[in-house]
């Protein structure tokens, strides 16, 4: 009898490809012979667009990359630009940045856990996770006026100071969150079906992970203790006390455990950040007073001639960085998110390259699912944790 393989086009419209990922599967029955991820369905040319925008104008673009953690993207761009300019944001602004990016890590991991569970068929966890994510989104709303497209960080600091009462709200969230993480774990961690679906599924050895350039919770899941917050600290992360969870064998279950533990560690960091901000003052310096690069405060613009000129210059054509290049990466929820900026001395970058963790991590899909079942492809895609906005940019 003649037998042939079946090609199944999974996506770009599929409930579990987390957006518009398309995976061309070559199947023998339900066994995957080959899986090729195909991307580009959400391509918006952000890197090219950045060449026609000032540095500040690119910040709203970054919100739309990993739209589950907008603050992290803002931070990565701002830090690279600051490196290019050779400036550093005030300490208080940095603590606020740490607080908000750690909250974004919690919310991004909540979305990941909820969608990963729903892919595997455990639907209830999704609603619990989104309940907590909603709290982070309303904190964003309070701080920046937008729930998802925050655009709150600026080169040299923040767009505005944090509103009164925000810290209490964050503190309440940080106090509650570990109990919620326990709640998710009650439903999943020891559940025999959940373990059967995740253990020894989509394994990635430490060697392969490094060879593929995989970063973030995926790399740590494979047992490599590599966290940019520890290895290349930025924003004063070296002053915070937290642990870096790692997995043992690099399967989907390890990655699950690493991410759930990261939720807990992030609440620890956020709690310390709140204390730091309180020490440095409930209100205070949130932006560098270097008016060649950073907007002067609005009150000064209304009273001081010089401030008005600076304001006009920066708003009208942006700041002029020196000729040169800079790369700064941060530990985003999904891995190493880096911005490589090349400046030719004009207010617009000559080139902006984004090292997007989702894009790099997605490469590992083919290796992880070869010879396994269709259902494992879904587990693998879920445990890579991609956001197509970031993959395609």
């Amino acid at each position, binding site marked *: 009898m003649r037998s042939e393989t*079946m090609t*199944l086009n999974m996506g770009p419209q*599929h*409930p*579990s490809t987390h957006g518009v990922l398309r995976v061309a599967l070559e199947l023998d*029955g*339900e066994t995957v012979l080959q899986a090729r991820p195909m991307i580009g369905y959400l391509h918006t040319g952000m890197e090219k667009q950045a060449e026609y925008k000032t540095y500040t104008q690119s910040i709203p673009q970054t919100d739309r990359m990993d739209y589950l953690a907008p603050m992290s993207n803002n931070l990565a761009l701002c830090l690279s630009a600051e490196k290019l300019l050779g400036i550093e944001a005030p300490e208080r602004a940095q603590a606020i940045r740490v607080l908000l990016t750690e909250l974004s890590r919690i919310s991004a991991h909540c979305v990941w856990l909820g969608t990963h*569970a*729903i*892919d*595997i*068929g*455990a*639907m*209830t966890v*999704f*609603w*619990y996770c989104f*309940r907590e994510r909603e709290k982070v989104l309303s904190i964003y709303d309070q701080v920046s006026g937008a729930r998802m497209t925050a655009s709150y960080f600026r080169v040299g600091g923040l767009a505005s100071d944090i509103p009164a009462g925000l810290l209490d709200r964050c503190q309440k969230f940080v106090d509650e969150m570990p109990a919620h993480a326990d709640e998710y774990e009650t*439903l*999943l961690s020891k*559940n025999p*079906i*959940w373990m*059967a*679906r995740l253990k020894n599924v989509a394994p990635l050895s430490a060697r392969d992970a490094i060879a593929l350039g995989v970063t973030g919770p995926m790399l740590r899941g494979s047992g490599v203790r590599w966290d940019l917050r520890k290895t290349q600290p930025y924003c004063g992360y070296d002053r915070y006390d937290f642990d870096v969870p790692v997995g043992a064998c690099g399967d989907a279950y390890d990655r699950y455990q690493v991410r759930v533990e990261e939720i807990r560690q992030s609440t620890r960091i956020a709690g310390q950040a709140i204390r730091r901000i309180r020490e440095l003052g409930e209100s205070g310096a949130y932006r560098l007073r270097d008016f060649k690069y950073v907007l002067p405060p609005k009150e000064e613009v209304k009273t001081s001639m010089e401030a008005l000129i600076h304001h006009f210059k920066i708003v009208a054509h942006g700041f002029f960085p020196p000729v040169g290049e800079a790369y700064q990466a941060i530990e985003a929820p999904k891995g190493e998110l880096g911005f490589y900026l090349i400046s030719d001395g004009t207010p617009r970058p000559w080139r902006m390259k984004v090292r997007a963790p989702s894009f790099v991590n997605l490469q590992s899909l083919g290796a992880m699912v070869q010879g396994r*079942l*269709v*259902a*494992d*492809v*879904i587990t693998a895609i879920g445990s890579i944790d991609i956001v197509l906005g970031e993959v395609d940019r």
Partner: protein
Amino acid sequence: MAALWNQPDVQVAVWALLKVGIILNGMLILVSYMIFAERKIAGHMQARTGPNRVGWFGFMQPWADVLKLFFKEEFIPAEANRVIFHIAPMLAVIPALVTFAVVPFGPGPALVGADVNVGLLVFLAMSSLGVYAITLGGWASNNKYALLGGLRSSAQMISYELAMGLSTIGVLMLAGSLSLVDIVHAQSKVAHVFGLPIPGWYVLYQPVAFVIFMITALAETNRAPFDLPEAEGELVAGFHTEYSSMKFGLFFLGEFMNVISISCIAVTLFLGGWNGPGPASLGLLWFALKLALLLFFFIWIRWTYPRLRYDQLMNLGWKVLLPLALANIVLTAIAIQWVSGAAG
């Protein structure tokens, strides 16, 4: 006219038609409100409220849903096998409905559609027919996801039917009859242990068989954690990916109808059917209560557990449940022999 009415055959026929009408409509309403109950319970399990806009507390929601389905466009994919594509949804509903004919809802002939002396076999036969709907529907759709769903379903239902059939054999050995009415009667004896009344329900005598039956029931009805033929996360919607409008509605109806019919059988076989404390006239109420309990179990499981993988499902069916069911039969046989030997 009067002469015609006096014919006993005519009376039987009219009486039977009446019962069919009542059971059919009763079950359709039960299905729609089970869907409503599922949505409400799921809602409360998931920190939300569920439907509460249509009617009082959302009570008219099922009617709104059905009306919506009727008004949807019927879509038939190009190069689908049109005949089979049309037949499959009907096949999903009819066998599930036929099962209700043999279910004794309460004591007395008025409350059972037909007391067939092989009632259990009718149920097993009808539940096996359900697989055709899914396999044929998946195959006829000319869609790869649907095809995979259909294939999974045929493999799944065949492997779980064996364990299910074997799990009922223990009950048969105890009751000594295939008639569901007789099986319920056999469970009416109340034993007294240390002065406490212990009901004669077979769940107490056949706990392993009951567990196997409930697990296979989940698999037979394609409910989570065995909802592989649908497997939304993997196969989009599995076998009914291409079905729309009321054809999809029929599959949906068939699934819930199956859940109810299989729960009815579980109540009959293991939970003592209409038996319960109080006068016999309360029989229907007891049956309804036990049924509600099992239906809640189905809903509860669905919104708690993730889905098994195809190979794990097969392993569970063939390597765990089937040997367990066989061992249960052997043990039951030994126990019966021992008890009768001790008595004789």
